[in-house]
């Protein structure tokens, strides 16, 4: 593999993705900022006052890391799935498929684009959160590594969704019926210690629970689960999903006749 060629190619894909995100900023940046502001106002400020303290933090502080993580996850996923499916649908994906760069480069470029959008929106949501509450970062390395790994996992998942999608409806099915319920049930708004034991165990099968809690641990120093589990699960997902993406690209499933 020609490393220099692939480095230029991956930079080109990332640049293209960023140009796209900023060109349609009204669709990519503004909606999550508005949604999260509403979450902070309604759940954090209005309802949160009545809820009081959770795990030793006021409710606004407690939900802030979960909401940041939620915006990172949905935007990383959404960017890759819409960009890659759009390229497939408009057939300009062929520009990349005829070129001599490796399939790994195509995947990494798109995933990096998704991660960058996820982080951009995550930073914006963090700034909004700071208008409502005070956040002290307890474990900066854990916070940054967890948000990066989670973003990579969902960008890879978005890539696989885009490969299989045949029409625009197919790119909204997973976010609507899988991602959103798992996120809401992933401990963004509550601690699973509030649930009966059976539902606590069921919740532990939800990978988003580990991401939200590990990120909350990085920010607040409080978590429902062990951080080691979160890293294990995230790294396993990265390896598994990247291998899946490579397999699909090499076989041409969903992208070549």
């Amino acid at each position, binding site marked *: *593999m*020609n490393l*220099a*060629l*692939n480095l*230029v*190619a991956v*930079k*080109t*894909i990332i*640049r*293209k993705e960023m*140009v796209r995100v900023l*060109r349609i900023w009204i669709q990519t940046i503004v909606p999550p900022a508005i949604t999260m502001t509403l979450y902070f106002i309604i759940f954090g400020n209005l309802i949160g006052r009545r809820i009081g303290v959770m795990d030793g933090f006021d409710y606004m502080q407690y939900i802030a890391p979960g909401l940041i993580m939620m915006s990172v996850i949905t935007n990383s996923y959404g960017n890759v799935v819409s960009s890659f499916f759009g*390229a497939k649908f*408009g*057939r*300009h994906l*062929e*520009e*990349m*498929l*005829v*070129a*001599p*760069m*490796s399939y790994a480069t195509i995947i990494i470029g798109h995933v990096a684009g998704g991660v960058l959008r996820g982080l951009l929106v995550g930073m914006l949501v963090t700034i909004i959160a700071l208008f409502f509450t005070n956040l002290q970062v307890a474990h900066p390395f854990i916070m940054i590594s967890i948000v990066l790994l989670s973003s990579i996992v969902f960008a890879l998942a978005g890539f696989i969704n885009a490969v299989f999608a045949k029409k625009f409806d197919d790119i909204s099915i997973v976010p609507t019926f899988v991602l959103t319920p798992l996120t809401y049930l992933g401990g963004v708004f509550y601690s699973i210690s509030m649930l009966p034991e059976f539902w606590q165990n069921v919740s532990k099968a939800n990978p988003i629970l580990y991401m939200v809690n590990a990120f909350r641990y990085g920010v607040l120093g409080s978590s429902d689960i062990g951080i080691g589990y979160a890293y294990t699960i995230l790294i396993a997902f990265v390896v598994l999903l990247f291998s899946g993406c490579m397999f699909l690209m090499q076989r*041409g499933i969903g992208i*070549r*006749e």
Partner: protein
Amino acid sequence: MSALSIKNLTKTYSNGNQALKGINLTVETGDFYALLGPNGAGKTTAIGIISSLVNKSGGEVEIFGHNLDTEQEAAKACLGIVPQEINLNLWETVGNIVFNQAGYYGIGGKRARERVEKYLRELRLWDRRNDTARSLSGGMKRRLMIARALVHEPKLLILDEPTAGVDIEIRRSMWDYLQKINEAGTTIILTTHYLEEAESLCRHIAIIDEGTIIEDARMSEVLRKLQREVFVLSLSDELAQAPELRGFKTRLRNDGELEVEKGPETDLNDLFGQLDDCGIHVVSLRNKANRLEEMFMHLVENKGTST
């Protein structure tokens, strides 16, 4: 070295349609090659396989000696593709489309910007570099796809019906440009439905029909096989009926012009001599159909059996 070598290439789609039935083709370096065939003959499938957009069922493809299965990166680097369908990101600017394509081939920074300027100027799109592709006319979009395919300066350029739907002026300017880059050393393979285009540009021709190559020869050899030609003669005076001419079939057309079919044993001097004897004055003469078109129709109808 061959620019392109295809051996026993087959493709069967999942619906059972056998698009290619073991085609063999060799295109020499520097050639200008026409790949012709009716709709659904297998041309676009063959090009799809060569450009790695379609998975083959069997056979081998080599581009400048690089096997597409084992040396894919080197093979792809030699190839530029202009597809039949518009496959541009219509929301992207003209300049970015060509710049990104250079990046996908590992050409970045200043070198990429110089190439972008060079090819956009050559294809008369430089003034539109900041406009989105969707704002371009059909002919401009086709020229942009040529600029995009050339930005990495491929040794082999494949154009799948590049002039479909463009006006005659743009088509002629594209012909001139393609001839120029061919003279500069780029091997070109062209598919087209405009047989006049193939006849005037290409030195070699292959005709594919129902997934099989039914003709593969130099253009001059193919045309030499054509033994029957039909001419349309415009006359100074209208005739009441078609004259009887030895060795020629004649027919009077509704518009008053005379249609004359010439066989292999006669020539035009003989025709004009006979017309002169009948007192018929010819103002102008033209082929009823393009010569290659006649040959093409004959080969496709008779599946490769020459007259």
